[in-house]
């Protein structure tokens, strides 16, 4: 494996007295698309929040492009080129679609993503650009959330449950756009409950169970049985 873009070393995460992650080790190479799967409460979202700086860790637990970033604030992490598409989309309701996208460019990072390119990826957003973001359908809102993250021109993009609450046909159209996003070498981590979807777009997968990595491997080598065991923690 080439030098990892992101590596986690014995990453723990706590919410008060409750420990959500226990010593996670992980390495992600440049250009990889990695799926993180696991049941509810397995720690998938916590993992992404820790990487994005929304949860504080010890500096050395998260390294990114050679820097230790575990103790940085979320905005500092974003400046370094990690963008999060948060669970539940978290759009800004008092801003229009276009303003939501422009906020993504606040980091001022240079790169190929611009309003024009996001509109080319999701043409419907251009038609709706002056509408309040809350007037869009769920799928369109998800497109705004993804476009907003892309506007930051990240090197690593984190997708948290982008299929949550959407109809299958919408989920399919959003996942169809993924190759265009990661095609140019952007590294991606995809957290999903929909295992099939997550595995179909990724090259490697980690399965979490109660805050620990219970299975890892290339997506074409791990079997359904392995996943079932790693997912539920019982013999299938």
């Amino acid at each position, binding site marked *: 494996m080439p030098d990892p873009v992101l590596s986690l070393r014995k990453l723990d995460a706590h919410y008060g007295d409750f420990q959500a992650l226990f010593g996670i080790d992980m390495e992600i190479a440049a250009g990889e698309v990695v799926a993180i799967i696991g049941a509810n409460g397995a720690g998938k979202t916590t993992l992404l929040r820790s990487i994005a700086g929304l949860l504080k860790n010890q500096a050395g637990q998260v390294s990114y492009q050679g820097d230790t970033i575990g103790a940085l604030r979320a*905005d500092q992490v974003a400046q370094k080129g990690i963008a999060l598409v948060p669970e539940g989309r978290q759009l800004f309701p008092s*801003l*229009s679609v276009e303003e939501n996208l422009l906020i993504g460019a606040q*980091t001022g990072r240079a790169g190929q993503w611009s309003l024009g390119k996001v509109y080319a990826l999701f043409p419907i957003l251009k038609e709706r650009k002056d*509408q309040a973001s809350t007037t869009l359908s769920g799928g369109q809102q998800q497109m705004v959330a993804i476009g907003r993250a892309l506007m930051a021109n990240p090197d690593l993009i984190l997708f948290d449950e982008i299929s949550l609450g959407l109809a299958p046909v919408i989920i399919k159209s959003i996942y169809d756009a993924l190759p265009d996003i990661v095609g140019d070498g952007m590294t991606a981590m995809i957290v999903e409950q929909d295992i099939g979807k997550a595995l179909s777009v990724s090259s490697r997968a980690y399965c979490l169970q109660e805050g620990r990595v219970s299975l890892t491997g290339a997506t074409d080598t791990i079997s359904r049985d392995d996943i079932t065991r790693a997912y539920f923690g019982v013999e299938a």
Partner: protein
Amino acid sequence: MVIAALGLLVLAAAPWWAGRADLRLLGEIYLYLSLAMLWNLMAGYAGLVSVGQQAYVGFGGYLLFALTMFGGLHPIAAILAGGILAGFLSVPIAALIFRLKGAYFAIGTWVMAEVFRLSFAQASSLGGGSGSSLPVDVVRSLADSRSGREALSYWLALGAAVIVIACVYLYLRSNRGLALTAIRDSEVAAAGLGINIWRTKLEVYVVTSAFTAIIGGLIFLQKLRISPDAAFSVNDWTAFVIFIVVIGGIGTLEGPIIGTILFFVLRETLADLGTTYLIVLGLVAIIIMLKAPKGVWGLIRSRFDLELFPLSYRVRTHDADKGA
């Protein structure tokens, strides 16, 4: 736009068509409007619900007196200097009170304001607890005649209100204003997109505090007399201002304007009733909060699709033009 410019011209000419009492009332309205605009930016947009902005009103007022009496500064220079000093002073205060959240933050700001009041009450050279008046020669340095001075302090109040409204409007339309609105909507998403929440809020706090001190200086330039209780009155400089913003519509630019008009209409018609007036104000506040939580302006906007300040969904930046 043309109507606004004409209206401004008519208001600027008020010293020639309005009586002395009306001029004074209008000046007071502008200053309250400015305070309301600033508090609205801080609480309605940045989410910093302070009940201690009287700290800066009083600070600005006292600095006007101190710098003119002991520093020999011209009153206008003293007011501006007071604003700048208040801006600097607000940084360590912010470092302290920003550690508090929600209701604790509100109480913290109030405590800070009380510290200000008690500190200035100790200054015996400024009259201690009983306060002092602006010396005659300082007042004379503004203008020789009484009418000239009153006209000048009227124009200063009008100018301050125009500048405050323009600054708040331009700030909200800028990229930073966009970031501020984003923080208000979702702090998690804003932080994840590279917006430094702490610094953005600090900026707003420092700038509003500096402007609030300038307005405070103008208020006491009009009154010519200052005392700790008047300068740091939570009722006059915070409770009424919150009332104005909340009944007008918090988190909108039009809200403080409508609220100020409503407040002064109520005050001028009910002031003779004494305590009843305060009871009526309280009732109005309760009814509006229950029936129209977005204030009078929110009510108007939901009926008619109308905006005085085109702010929502129309921000244009250079990038936007390129991409669209």
